[in-house]
């Protein structure tokens, strides 16, 4: 069928600079660059996904990819995007699919929050000269602790629940092997070890070669139960039950059979080439009590040595659900906001379901405090953290730590073209094609991730010091260090923030 879809980008090739080396031709899995019989290189705009791989690798900077948003007659309702979706579905009859997180211009509350700093009183701290503690512990804390004196020395008399110690309040979010390449997993695992933090297998299982990184690995138990077995649980530092994902709350996952090669097949424990379908719900969980059973099954299975996390999407009732999860016995609650990424989701769901993580953090933290159970769980926030300021604001709002997914991918080369679901990722990230996967050298991936998180951690230390704080835990839930700007009263209420300019209470 003749497509009515219009090219969204224009590839400009500066012929004076192009040396016909064909690097672009070889690098584009979407075949937007081609070479003719004379050895002349040319491009086909309509195939370009604007992943910028060719631009990055072109040795003479001969290529530019430009926005070519199709001109449709001025109409706020029937925009070029709306029409594109309709043409696509009229041609395929299918569900619109996409990748990455919600790109719509919903409010980004981070950009409406301002951090505090010390002046004169409570002087600021210079993290280059004085100790600065970014370390924190994730897990359930006791309601009170009992100390007894032995030979004049205080000794802790309370048995503590297992904790995850992170050297910086930044962890890597769940991204499953299968959705992402093995190189991504290896890069995340190695970087986590170097950084003293954790990566998360997602529901893809733990590839055999990465068991050595178990002490820095959070393994997931999701609705498909892929790759879950006792060694898997034993290898991990913590176990996460995945209930939902910010990009597609309420629906399951689907890894197409083409991506299930030999290693994915072994790791997920499913036949090679078969689709891996994660159901929308866990078929054994229909209540908080059911969830509690799974939490305790996992605790039993691992002899109460590992924290159990429960990951949910940020949805309208997130605070009440979080309360239930805390009461069900979880040690950690991970909340994924609607800007959280995905390898594949129906576009309509990604763009229209769920709530921003900022509101969810505040609502959950407030609720758990009000119920006096905030100590029982740690809260990890996820979903579109873009920089260190977002992270520190999340902690001030009430999170213990954050998960980075998209930012980690971008660090490894992702240019957010949102074509993850095609499996043709030119950056070697969201692909199982061995030819494409090689493009991400795990050495490079690990180094770039390490650099990113180190950089953010330095910035967080600077900002903390500026506020006169010397430990990240002193900031957690300390919303007085935030002020809102340009928000409605309702939003300020939910966030628990005062307006910028209002005095310290």
């Amino acid at each position: 069928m003749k497509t009515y879809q219009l090219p969204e980008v224009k590839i400009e090739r500066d012929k004076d600079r192009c040396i016909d080396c064909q690097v672009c031709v070889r690098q584009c899995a979407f075949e937007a660059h081609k070479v003719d019989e004379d050895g002349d290189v040319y491009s086909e705009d309509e195939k370009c996904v604007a992943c910028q791989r060719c631009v990055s690798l072109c040795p003479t900077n001969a290529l530019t990819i430009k926005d070519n948003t199709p001109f449709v007659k001025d109409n706020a309702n029937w925009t070029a995007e709306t029409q594109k979706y309709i043409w696509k579905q009229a041609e395929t009859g299918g569900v619109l699919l996409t990748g990455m997180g919600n790109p719509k211009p919903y409010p980004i509350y981070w950009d409406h929050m301002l951090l505090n700093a010390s002046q004169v009183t409570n002087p600021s701290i210079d993290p280059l000269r004085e100790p600065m503690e970014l370390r924190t512990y994730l897990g359930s804390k006791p309601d009170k602790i009992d100390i007894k004196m032995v030979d004049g020395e205080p000794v802790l008399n309370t048995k503590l629940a297992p904790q995850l110690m992170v050297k910086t309040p930044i962890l890597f979010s769940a991204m499953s092997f299968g959705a992402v390449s093995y190189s991504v997993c290896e890069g995340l695992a190695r970087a986590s070890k170097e950084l003293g933090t954790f990566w998360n297998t997602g529901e893809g299982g733990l590839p055999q070669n990465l068991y050595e990184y178990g002490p820095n690995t959070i393994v997931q138990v999701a609705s498909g139960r892929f790759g879950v077995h006792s060694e898997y649980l034993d290898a991990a530092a913590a176990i996460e039950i995945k209930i939902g994902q910010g990009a597609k709350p309420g629906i399951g996952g689907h890894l197409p059979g083409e991506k299930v090669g030999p290693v994915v097949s072994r790791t997920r424990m499913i036949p090679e080439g078969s689709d891996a379908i994660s159901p929308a719900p866990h078929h054994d969980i229909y209540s908080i009590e059911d969830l509690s059973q799974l939490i305790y099954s996992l605790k039993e299975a691992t002899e109460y040595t590992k924290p159990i996390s429960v990951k949910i999407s940020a949805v309208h009732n997130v605070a009440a659900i979080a309360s239930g999860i805390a009461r069900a016995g979880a040690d950690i609650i991970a909340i994924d906001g609607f800007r959280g990424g995905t390898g594949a989701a129906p576009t309509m769901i990604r763009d229209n379901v769920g709530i921003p993580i900022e509101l969810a953090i505040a609502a959950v933290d407030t609720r758990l405090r009000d119920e006096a159970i905030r100590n029982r769980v740690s809260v990890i926030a996820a979903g579109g953290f873009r920089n260190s300021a977002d992270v520190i604001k999340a902690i001030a709002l009430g999170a213990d730590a954050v998960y980075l997914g998209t930012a980690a991918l971008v660090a490894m080369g992702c240019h957010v073209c949102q074509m993850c679901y095609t499996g043709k990722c030119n950056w070697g990230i969201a692909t199982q094609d061995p030819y494409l996967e090689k493009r991400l050298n795990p050495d490079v991936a690990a180094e770039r991730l390490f650099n990113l998180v180190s950089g953010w951690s330095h910035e967080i230390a600077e900002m903390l010091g500026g506020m006169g704080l010397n430990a990240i835990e002193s900031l957690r839930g300390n919303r007085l260090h935030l002020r809102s700007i340009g928000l409605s009263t309702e939003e300020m209420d939910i966030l628990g923030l005062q307006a910028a300019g209002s005095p310290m209470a």
Partner: protein
Amino acid sequence: MKRVYTKEEACIGCRLCEVHCLTEHSRSKNIIKAHKKEFPRAISRVLVEELRPVSFAVQCRHCDEPVCVEACITGAITKDESGKVVHDEEKCVGCWTCVLVCPHGAPRRDLERRKVAKCDLCPDRETPACVEMCPNRALVYEER
């Protein structure tokens, strides 16, 4: 001695090593001029072999007992004190004996100049161009 080694699991077959090798061995060392304005064009001394998904770059291995040195009829190829196998273009007459004996198939024929071209480990640089410009660290320059 330091040699260039290929890591085939990281080679992405982009052939940028060839592009930068050619540039480094051109007169101008300007990538655009070297490819579009210089005649005869310089040629790359590194060759990428590919059968997707596998690819890797091959260049002179600077062997310990180089057959090419023994076979070269003009004495153009010698092994210097550092262990480098060096090729004197002035002396080369393009007899292709080295092409015939090198077990790696490393010496390349420069048909325009009727001379052989082989890796010289980029004497003007600290790290050979192919290694430095590889976008995925598939080439390393190290002692093994």
